[in-house]
């Protein structure tokens, strides 16, 4: 309900080949004070994107004009570790990204992404390195993420790898549904179950 459907996405990508990127980097805690879901894209990777005086750090990939407008981010291993703040996934979406590719995701971050319409695509370490190398060599490198076929492809060379996603979540992403839609439909079953709980 809350996000656009995801089908096939072809886009250039921002490279961020750093391991263990935590959610405090993706969105620092001091930007969690909103009571509405607005403006999180502005503070996406705030302290890595901007100096303390507010000027942009020119060499940080998300600030480089050559990648501007990309819908995909390719991150290092163990992306999204740390806090459960969904604001991290919101900031990814609000920055304009629909897909994060990494060789390993932290659990809660992956879940949060799926709940807000960002597709986490886990690939092998080798393929992640292939993607990094290709983007570094040519920032116009396009990556095609095909959700129906569950494949990610380097458009120029045709190098491709498949990725896992459970059928239920895949259907949700394809249709723009979320878990609440599903759960509200089985509320009677939940109410019956609730009566059996001892406390």
């Amino acid at each position, binding site marked *: *309900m*809350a996000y656009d459907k995801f089908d096939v996405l072809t886009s250039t990508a921002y490279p961020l*080949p*750093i*391991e*263990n990127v*935590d959610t*405090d*980097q993706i969105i*620092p*805690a*001091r930007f*969690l*004070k*909103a*009571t*509405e*879901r607005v403006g999180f894209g502005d503070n996406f990777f705030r*302290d890595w994107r901007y100096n*303390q005086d507010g000027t942009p750090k020119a060499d940080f990939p998300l600030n480089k004009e050559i990648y501007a407008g990309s819908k995909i981010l390719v991150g*290092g*291993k*163990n992306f999204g*570790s*740390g*806090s*459960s*703040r*969904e*604001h991290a*996934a919101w900031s990814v979406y609000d920055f304009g990204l629909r897909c994060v590719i990494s060789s*390993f*995701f*932290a*659990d*809660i971050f992956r*879940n*949060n992404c799926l*709940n*807000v319409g960002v597709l986490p695509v886990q690939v092998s370490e080798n393929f992640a390195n292939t993607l990094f190398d290709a983007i570094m060599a040519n920032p116009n490198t396009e990556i095609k993420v095909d959700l129906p076929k569950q494949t990610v492809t380097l458009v120029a060379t045709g190098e491709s790898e498949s990725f896992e996603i*459970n*059928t*239920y*979540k895949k259907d949700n992403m394809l249709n723009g549904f*979320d*878990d*609440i839609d*599903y*759960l*509200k439909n*089985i*509320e009677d*079953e*939940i109410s019956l*179950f*609730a009566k059996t*709980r*001892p*406390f």
Partner: protein
Amino acid sequence: MANTLFDKVWDAHVVRKVKEGPDVLFIDRHFIHEVTSPVAFLGLESRGNSVLYPEKTFATADHNTPTINQHLPVEDPLSANQLNALEENAKKYGISHWGLGDKNNGIVHVVGPENGITLPGATIVCGDSHTSTHGAFGAIAFGIGTSEVEMVLSTQCIMQPKPKSLRINVNGSLGVGVTPKDVALYIISKLSTSGATGYFVEYAGDVFKEMSMEGRMTVCNLSIEMGARGGMIAPDEKTYHYIKGRALAPKGEAWDKAMNYWQTLYTEDNAAFDAEVTFEASDIEPMITYGTNPGMGIGVTKSIPNSDDTDSGAKSYKKSLAYMNFDEGDAMLGKEIDFVFLGSCTNGRIEDFRAFCSIVEGRKKADNVTAWLVPGSHKVVDQIKEEGLDKIIENAGFVLREPGCSACLAMNDDKIPSGKLSVSTSNRNFEGRQGPGSRTLLASPLVAAASAVEGVVTDPRTILTA
């Protein structure tokens, strides 16, 4: 087939299994706080839903609250706005609310157990990754995102694939000065911050059997820092003793019935785990971190490893040390520090203050150190005073603040200034976690206390055994 503790509790909460999808898991207890719940309530309202079981949700303010002058209006308008939203939403939907100044107020993972809300065999969630704390009671407890907070409010369920199981055994007995925090930091240093991703942990072995409930909470709290969704420990006499008589714990017949159930909550012999690791207690010494994730920890007497000897990529490792302004091979002992933080859902309980006081009693805070001592709840404050620890703290030149999450994540004014080095009993040493540019060394309350009186990173054993 023999079942694990985790299987028993999980399977008892599955409303239905979705074909080629997650389980629909019923949630017994739901905690909310001011930071991750306002957007969930907005979502709820925009869909025209209500709160299905308001009596199963508990609200407390903790993340952005000030730790001085709590009787005055909150100065930061954004924080005040979130606190108001929590209070208004709780009132509107009939959810119990322990706001700022309430005698039951405190950090969500401290007040839940202390009021008897946390029970063995329960499923417990909260929009906070350290919800894993409650696993100390034999509950399945884990952190969720705001979409899931809305899910639980409106349907009392979340949708989760069942995680794989990992048993972590620590056998033998801990040496002098080695605390539950050190056990956890040691395990994380061995498994890395992603080593347990996809798993739910059961802690077993002599060390956890011997451990107090407070200690078990510290260990389970840090499960998320090795990537695990949560960690749990089978309930035993210590667990029942802790819970009995607490305000919201079952009473009378309900207690007897609960006890009958709780006594079935253990891992059966021959039950299979997807993975299992075993450590020896005698290998663990007081720990300290030197980098920018909790897996970068070493014994306090050790030197910072060379990048060639680490599992993480050399580039990321060097970036981390550069941020800390440390070099490979540096000794940790003797590094001059600027701040000490005692508190958080990891180490903000009465035992942590007792440990801190065991070191600072009769000594003085070093002049170069600014110390923030922040109890986890008002009940912890009361107990500190009851035991006379407040006098020890005061005589040693420290000041006791009011409860909250404080400098653990620096959402309030308790921010470590840029470049300053802090020894912190909290749970994360990420870049800027305690304030933009701040540098964090995670450690136990004993290491924090010893370092606070010496002004440099100090092995508490040199004081304890002197």
